């Protein structure tokens, strides 16, 4: 399982109701269902992923995040998770508003574009970074809204979204330690636990 997902697990209360936005093939939801006995639901648009999730016995709803989440009532889930999808949606700011409206708490993870390697790549080669972690070219990438750790925190502050906790993951244990101290430079993946302002 991706490291950001195992980080999220400990924030999930056993037996809670969890909504996973862009849930992929449902691997994480199934893990939460097995380990934390959550009542899970996943949203997904990829056809094969939807079938795979249904075959796992999960509740998977075909829904495009870019069309909004107005069909979900306020505070109807204990936890709303969106792992590695923020950068791929058309309106990241609106999705965040919707998440904290629907979930009593939320978890967002995204690749940090402020990582020193991205900066080095762009600074020395003058081209958009391509790596094994972000393998797409600028013209065909599904990731249309990259941001940095600092960008994200500023957006949360502007929106009055409360950051309950954050976790920074590097590409190794040592760099994860560095990432905790200097996240915007050393975090590969940023993990935020957020909620609406009280």
């Amino acid at each position, binding site marked *: 399982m991706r490291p950001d997902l195992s980080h999220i697990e400990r924030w999930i209360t056993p037996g809670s109701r969890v909504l996973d936005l862009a849930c992929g093939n449902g691997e994480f939801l199934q893990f939460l269902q097995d380990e934390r006995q959550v009542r899970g639901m996943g949203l997904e648009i990829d056809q094969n992923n939807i079938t795979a999730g*249904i075959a796992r016995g999960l*509740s998977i709803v075909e829904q495009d995040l870019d069309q909004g989440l107005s*069909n979900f009532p306020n505070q*109807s889930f204990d936890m709303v998770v969106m792992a590695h999808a923020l950068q791929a949606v058309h309106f990241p700011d609106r999705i965040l508003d919707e998440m904290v409206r629907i979930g009593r708490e939320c978890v967002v993870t995204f690749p940090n574009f402020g990582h020193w390697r991205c900066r080095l790549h762009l600074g020395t080669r003058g081209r958009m970074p391509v790596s094994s972690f972000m393998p797409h070219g600028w013209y065909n990438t599904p990731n249309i809204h990259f941001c940095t750790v600092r960008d994200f925190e500023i957006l949360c502050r502007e929106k009055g979204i409360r950051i309950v906790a954050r976790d920074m993951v590097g590409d190794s244990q040592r760099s994860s330690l560095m990432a905790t101290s200097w996240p915007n430079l050393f975090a590969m993946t940023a993990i935020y636990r957020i909620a609406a302002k009280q």
Partner: protein
Amino acid sequence: MSLHNSSHSVGLVTPQVALFDEPLALACGRSLASYELVYETYGELNDDRSNAVLICHALSGHHHAAGYHSEQDKRPGWWNECIGPGKAIDTNRFYVVSLNNLGGCHGSTGPSTINPQTGKPWGPLFPPLRVRDWVNSQARLADLLGIECWAAIVGGSLGGMQAMRWALEYPQRVKHCLVIASAQKLSAQNIAFNEIARQAIVSDSKFAEGYYLDNNEIPDKGLALARMVGHITYLSDDAMASKFGRDLRSGTLEVGTDDSVEFQVESYLRYQGSRFSDSFDANTYILMTRALDYFDLAREYNHDPVAAFREATCSFLVVSFSSDWRFSPQRSQELVDALIAADRPVSYAEIESNDGHDAFLLPIPRYLEVISAYMTRVEEKR
């Protein structure tokens, strides 16, 4: 080995008839003293009777959902692509029950069967039915077959309405509910199409206010016209364009000619209409379209589908088809939204298809994969 016995088909099947002689109270206030239901079963009921799946048919459907009635039979049952050994609804794992609904015209008691009180066909005197009446009669069939709880109830269109009504009326008797190309209620446009169909039938002089069987006649023109209207609404504009386009079956439109011209689509519709009027009863058509019109999932729940679904305890799969405008994906999404708000487990897939409402009867690969994936979990959690 004949095709009818191949390993992918349930093979030869024989319809059975169940007689019920305890009166059935109907939603209209009347009751039926006794009635018969014709049904078929595929697969074996397991020892703990936990693998039964009920198939609810749509407007013009019947009990013959899979397999063949004889070696000479050219066409298999209407959902043969989905039901059978190794298929999406796998008869190696499930015991599948498919019946002809009360009021139907394929063997179950209905307007064209004899009213024991008069010795004549019921005709227009057959009581009007609602979806809940079908559900209640199906529950008695379940009792007869020793099925306390269905592993799954599956229905498309009007069949989906029955599946949902089951989930609300008999929550303890349904584990999974598969609602395909359906809606919580018909729109005004939908009712309007049904009314055109009914008017086509009653305007046929041979209809004789519904007593046509007493005159040994059938209102074939009216019934065919009703089917033609219906058929158009079950297809999509794109499907008709690709199937027929503007192709001519006969004649020419060249300048200087005065041939009589027939478009392919005209001939097709006429054929569909006349084939239908040979095999379907006009009073049943009126009864079934009315049941469709009257269905309103949440009527007695203060018109709140969320409150309605809170009655249910089963899990749901909802499926829609992109080009279906008679039961559009929005109607299915309304069901999904209400189920989410009612905190019921629900999965939903919108299948890409050009075939309009008819798509729910077609072997579209992704559609069958989704049903199959869901049925895997039905087996595990039954």
